[in-house]
């Protein structure tokens, strides 16, 4: 046991300078972060003053497309949307006779080949809902929306 204690003591002595260095590094990082924070605050207040004195220097405001909800129609081509629309029209009776359609269901359906990406299907469904082509028929487990064709 004495040997083990001796080893522990030696290891402790070996680690101590490294531990000290680590503490110094942490202190240095904290100081640098505090300085960076102060510099950013100073930059923001200076920028604000400059833009007030000369508004022409201010960048144009960024406009959020589609209310900032990320439903950017541009991500799905119009051709795909038209194809999806045709599919809806062809399958209207079948869709409306059942529980409706939902994104994950279409993704799992091997016969649905118009769009093979879950996110794009969700976006297209939301878009058709906004345009009054689809209506929410019910909301399933976990908030899944089942749509039917108007």
């Amino acid at each position, binding site marked *: 046991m004495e040997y083990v204690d001796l080893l522990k003591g030696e290891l402790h002595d070996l680690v101590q300078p490294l531990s000290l260095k680590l503490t110094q590094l942490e202190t240095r990082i904290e100081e640098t972060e505090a300085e960076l924070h102060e510099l950013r605050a100073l930059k923001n207040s200076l920028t604000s003053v400059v833009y007030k004195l000369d508004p022409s220097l201010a960048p144009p405001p960024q406009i959020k497309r589609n209310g900032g909800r990320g439903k950017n129609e541009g991500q799905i081509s119009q051709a795909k949307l038209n194809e999806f629309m045709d599919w809806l029209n062809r399958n209207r009776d079948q869709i409306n006779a059942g529980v409706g359609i939902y994104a994950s269901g279409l993704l799992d359906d091997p016969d649905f080949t118009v769009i093979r990406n879950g996110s794009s299907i969700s976006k297209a469904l939301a878009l058709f809902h906004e345009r009054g082509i689809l*209506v*929410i028929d*019910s909301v*399933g487990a976990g908030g899944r929306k089942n749509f039917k064709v108007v």
Partner: protein
Amino acid sequence: MFSIREFRDLDILVKLRESGPILSRDLASELGADEYGSVIGRRLGWMRHYGMLERNDGSLWSLTDAGKRVVFARKRAALMQELGELPEEELIEVMAEVCARYRLGNPMIATMLRREFVFGTQR
């Protein structure tokens, strides 16, 4: 769950067209609500206030004549295609016409237009 940011008025109107007169409890169940609460009642109450729905003595909810006209109005495919192909800049004029209808037209339709804007823009 039944906020106008989640469900368009048209969603509920179409559901009522399919179901016919219905109790709010049953409507909530058909729409997938786990439990019946006052939320659907409040939504239906506002829709009645705006003239889209009515409730008879047996507490059954149904479409008003004006509500039926909205649900049964079918968009002309040619018009929708034309609207879809309009350059964005020309939509300003379309919006101006919609705004004019909002101010001068049927109050129920004006309310639905306003609520559509809330739904569509989530604002």
